C-alpha cells in the first residue's frame, strides 16, 4: 500500500465507509467498534514513503465527514492528528516491533472511537466499548500483521 494514489485511496475509503456502515450496527451489539475508514487512512500514511501534507489529511477527513454523515471537521481533525503523529514518529516506528505497532494503532482507534462518541453518541458513552474495542482491534491487527507470514505474495510485495 506504499504510495497509493489519491484516487485509489479515496475509492478505498469510500468502500470501507460502506462496509463500516453495514457491520457497525451488528458489532455494536457486542460492544465492539472497528473504525475501518480511519484505520485504512492511518495505514496508508504509515506505509507512505513520504510525509503527508496537512491539507491532504484535512481534505480526506472532510470527505469522510461528508460520506459518513459525521459532524464536519471531526474526522478532519482526527485524520490530521493521526497524520501528524505518524509523520512525526515515522522513523521511530521502525524501531518498534509488530506488536507495539499494533498496540499503537489499537490505541489510536480507541482514541478515535472515544473522540467521535463525544460528539456523536455522548449519552451512550461507554468505557466498556472502548476497552472491548481496544482488545478486539489489537487481536485483529495482530492477525492482519501475521498474515504476511502465511501468504508469500504479500511478502514479495
Amino acid at each position, binding site marked *: 500500500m506504499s504510495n497509493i494514489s489519491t484516487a485509489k485511496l479515496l475509492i478505498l475509503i469510500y468502500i470501507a465507509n460502506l462496509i463500516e456502515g453495514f457491520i457497525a450496527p451488528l458489532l455494536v451489539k457486542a460492544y465492539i467498534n472497528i473504525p475501518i475508514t480511519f484505520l485504512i487512512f492511518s495505514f496508508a500514511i504509515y506505509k507512505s514513503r513520504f510525509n503527508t501534507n*496537512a491539507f491532504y489529511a484535512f481534505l480526506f477527513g472532510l470527505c469522510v465527514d*461528508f460520506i459518513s454523515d459525521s459532524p464536519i471537521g471531526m474526522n478532519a481533525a482526527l485524520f490530521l492528528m493521526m497524520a501528524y503523529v505518524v509523520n512525526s514518529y*515515522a522513523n521511530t516506528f521502525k524501531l518498534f516491533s509488530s506488536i507495539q505497532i499494533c498496540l499503537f494503532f489499537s490505541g489510536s482507534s480507541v482514541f478515535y472511537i472515544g473522540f467521535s462518541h463525544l460528539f456523536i453518541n455522548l449519552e451512550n458513552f461507554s468505557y466498556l466499548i472502548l476497552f472491548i474495542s481496544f482488545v478486539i482491534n489489537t487481536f485483529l491487527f495482530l492477525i492482519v500483521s501475521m498474515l504476511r507470514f502465511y501468504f508469500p505474495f504479500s511478502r514479495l510485495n
Partner: protein
Amino acid sequence: MSRVALTHVSKLLYFFCIVLSFFLLYIDVNYKSFEKAKNLYKSFTISSSYILKRVTIDPFYYVYEISKEKSKLIEENKQLKQELDNSFIKNFLISKDSNFFVDDSTIKKFLNLNHIKKPFHLAKMNFFDVEKYLCCSQHRMFIKIIGNPDIDFIGSTVINDQGIVGQIIYDKSTTEVLLLTDVASVIPIVSGNHFCNARGSGRPGVISCTYSKLIWPDSIEIGQDFYSSGIGGIYPSKILIGNVSNINASDTSNIVFDLNLVANPLHGNFLGVVEP
C-alpha cells in the same frame, strides 16, 4: 529510506488545519451550518443508488418476476383445469338429472317480447322420438314440468325460446305435448286479412293451411309471415308462427300453402309451459 522530519512550516500548517477542523466542528455542532451540504449529498446518494438499481438490478429482477409469474400462472391454470375435471366427474351424474343448472332467462325473454303476461312453468324434455318425428306423421313430445305444480296443464301452450312448439294433450303421470307439425294439430293463424286454421303436415318444421279464394281473394306470397290469431283460446295471439314456403292450388278455388315454423322443438331440452 527514512522520512524527512516535519519542518516548522509543516507543523504550523498541521496546527492551522487542526484549528480549522475544530472551528468547523464547533460551528457544525452548534449552528448546523453544513446541513444543506449534507442533505444535498444524501439526496444525491439516494437518487444515484435508485437510478443505479433501476438500470442494473431491476431489469434482471423484472425478467425473473415475469418468468416466475408465467410459470405460476401455468401451474395455477393446470391446477384449475384439474379441479374442473374433478368437479365435472363428481357432478356428471347429478348434472345430467339435476335442475340446478336450468336457466329460464331465454323463455322469460321470449314471453316478455311477446307480451305474454300469464305465468309459466319450466319443463324438461323427457322423451322425444326423433326418428318418428323425421319420418312419420305423429309428432309427440313427452316432458316433465319442473316443480310438479298441482295444476291441470291440458291445453296449455308449450313454447321454447324460438316460439310456440305445441300444446299439452295429456297430463297425468307424464305430460304429452302435441307438436304443431303433428297431423292432429290445428292452430288458427293470421296474416293481415288472411285467417286460416293451419294443420300439422306430418313433416318436420312444416304446417299447412288451406283457404278458399272465394272467401279471401287476396294473394299469398312466399315468405309472408303468419302469426297466431288466438282464436279458440288455446294459443296466445300475435306470436310469429312461421313464413310461407310453398303455395299450391289444389283446385280452382282452394289454395294450399306450407309454412316453415320458426320454433324448432329440437332446439333445446328446456321448454316453457304457459298456464292455461
